[in-house]
């Protein structure tokens, strides 16, 4: 065993997992970011092997904040089961892996959710031929449901609350749910709304399928870091906030250079023309400028990865700015 280890283990020296992540990242020269093994719109390798998606952009934004270079990031694939141990052991510096922010994960697992980059929720998808327009009309329906997930419990609660019954068809994976629904073995497929959108986009004829308006659970997805390293948490939190604030202020990757001579004080603070916010975070003065320049604001990232013009066609909905009917809200940049 010893011999085995010494021959095949590639040993590198890791620094202590808890303190000074920012310094570790700077010393290492690149960010290690945990993403999914592939989820449409959030993180998936494109044809050239580059990771793309809303979560991948989040990772890149943090890399830009620290290094001013969007390529200084190494994506580490994690599954639903391996993500938390991977973060806890220090193998990744942060997770941007469509992870729902819950009290037990935040408190009991010892992580720190730094914000929300996508407000998701459990929804229902049906064939439009079913002639149903609301989930409350689904009495007696056969529902495809992933076993052992919170969606299963949410489903039971929803149907009991509305006094209607259903028959569950247990499935293991998203693919299985998709095949069962398309083959007509179940009337309804329920999972997170973003997952339903990708299922619908993969159908032979997306127009034949309908996502019902009811969202029956709160699934705020966001990046997280290890508990106790507040300096690093701040870097990740404000990288996300900078993208949201940029959208709010109308600063985009296209006009960011022109905006440097804006007369709006918050824009000048955001772009590092005034104030010393970069210094406070131990980052370059123009860290937020670089994020907007190289990645874009939140809206640009959203539209490119999951928005109405992509095959996923997810409307902004809850993810619109608070000024535009959504709940996306970042604390002021001052």
């Amino acid at each position: 065993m010893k011999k085995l280890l010494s021959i095949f283990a590639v040993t590198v020296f890791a620094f202590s997992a808890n303190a000074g992540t920012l310094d570790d990242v700077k010393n290492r020269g690149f960010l290690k970011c945990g993403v999914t093994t592939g989820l449409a719109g959030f993180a998936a390798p494109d044809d050239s092997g580059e990771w793309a998606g809303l979560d991948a952009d989040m990772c890149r934004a943090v890399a830009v904040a620290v290094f001013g270079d969007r390529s200084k990031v190494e994506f580490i694939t994690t599954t639903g089961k391996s993500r938390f141990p991977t973060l806890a052991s220090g193998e990744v510096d942060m997770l941007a892996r469509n992870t729902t922010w819950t009290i037990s994960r935040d408190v009991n697992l010892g992580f720190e959710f730094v914000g929300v980059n996508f407000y998701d929720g459990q929804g229902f998808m049906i064939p439009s031929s079913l002639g149903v327009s609301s989930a409350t009309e689904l009495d007696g329906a056969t529902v495809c449901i992933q076993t052992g997930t919170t969606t299963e419990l949410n489903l039971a609660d929803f149907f009991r609350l509305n006094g209607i019954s259903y028959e569950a068809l247990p499935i293991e994976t998203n693919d299985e749910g998709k095949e069962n629904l398309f083959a007509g073995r179940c009337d309804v497929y329920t999972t997170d709304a973003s997952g339903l959108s990708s299922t619908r986009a993969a159908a032979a004829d997306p127009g034949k399928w309908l996502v019902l308006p009811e969202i029956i659970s709160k699934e705020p997805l966001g990046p997280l870091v290890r508990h106790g390293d507040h300096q690093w948490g701040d870097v990740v939190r404000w990288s996300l906030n900078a993208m949201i604030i940029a959208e709010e202020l109308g600063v985009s990757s296209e006009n960011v250079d022109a905006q440097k001579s804006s007369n709006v004080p918050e824009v000048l603070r955001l772009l590092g023309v005034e104030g010393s916010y970069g210094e406070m975070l131990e980052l370059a003065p123009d860290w937020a400028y670089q994020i907007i320049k190289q990645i874009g604001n939140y809206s640009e990232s959203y539209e490119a990865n999951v928005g109405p013009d992509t095959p996923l066609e997810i409307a902004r909905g809850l993810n619109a700015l608070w000024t535009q009917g959504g709940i996306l809200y970042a604390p002021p940049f001052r």
Partner: protein
Amino acid sequence: MNDITESRKPPVATTGILGWLRMNLFSTWVNSLISLFVLYILFQFIPWILNWTIFAADFKYNFNGEEIVNREMCSRVLDPENGGACWAIIYVRFYQFMYGFYPREEVWRVNLSYLMLAVAVVPLLFDNFPFRKHFLKFTYIFPVIAFFLLNGGLGLESVSTNKWGGLLVTLVLGCTGIALAFPLGIILALGRRSNLPVISMMCTLFIEFIRGVPLITLLFFGMVMLPLFLPEGIDMDGLARVLVAVTLFQSAYMAEVIRGGLQAIPQGQYEAARSIGLSYWQMNLKVVLPQAIRISIPSIVNTSIGLFKDTTLVIIVGLLDLLGIGRGALADTTWLGLAYEVYFFVSLVFFIFTFAMSRYSLYLEKKLKTGINMGAD
């Protein structure tokens, strides 16, 4: 004296194609029924499969002659009635399927390793290979060369195993697992049959523990718990941890297979070897093991094929092997919904490797005549 009777030909119905058909497919009425049923199924499916996978399929261009860059351009999306498979997803992502995210400018290192793997393995497999002795020397040092080539070091730029993927990861896991588990398995099998109680007990405990838990559990153990046992400040590479888990798993199974072979060797062989003064190791290496391994070949190949396929489980711990890369491709919004093509391709690659392994085992069995009574030859 001249009227030698001409030898009569055998009846027509027992020779040629007709005879073969009668012997093999239509010997009884039950067999005839089964044969007809199978022929009907083949007749139904083979044209359809050929049409879907080849004749109506898109490779690089769709039926309009445009180069396919996303799913909307696939013939089977444009025309669901007539379009066949859309292999463009494989074509465009072939690099990823073969090498994962290995940097393109460094990929010659992987190709060279594949080539050297062939040079190292082929002479090992066929004992009539010319200059076999010299090639075998290379086989012994190949793992070291491959390690530095793929991983970097000795002047080569380091490529983190996070960037490895696709067939590369599948082959690294499969080959290393099988190659390391074989000697470990032999040692464990001998240990379990040892007369020394401590050794025998330890080997039995190890084998029974590993066989008692699923591979997924071991992978998690390797991924999550192994780092906790390592000294502070030492971080073991993710792929290496999985390799340890896979090797331990395979060696326990291999040990039991070889032990089965050892049990089949008559006691007389041991006694004869002892009586001419051979030591324990001489007896095992020169008399017992060659016979035991020979009769275990089918089972050894069986467990090896099993392991090769089990390597797909590593996706659970976040490594993207061939299947993982395929699932990643399906998650790209450009290609959503082309699951049949991806899974077909992945299974085809696995089939090629496992089928080659099983044919080789048949060849070996024929050559070594494992069916013959052991004591006699």
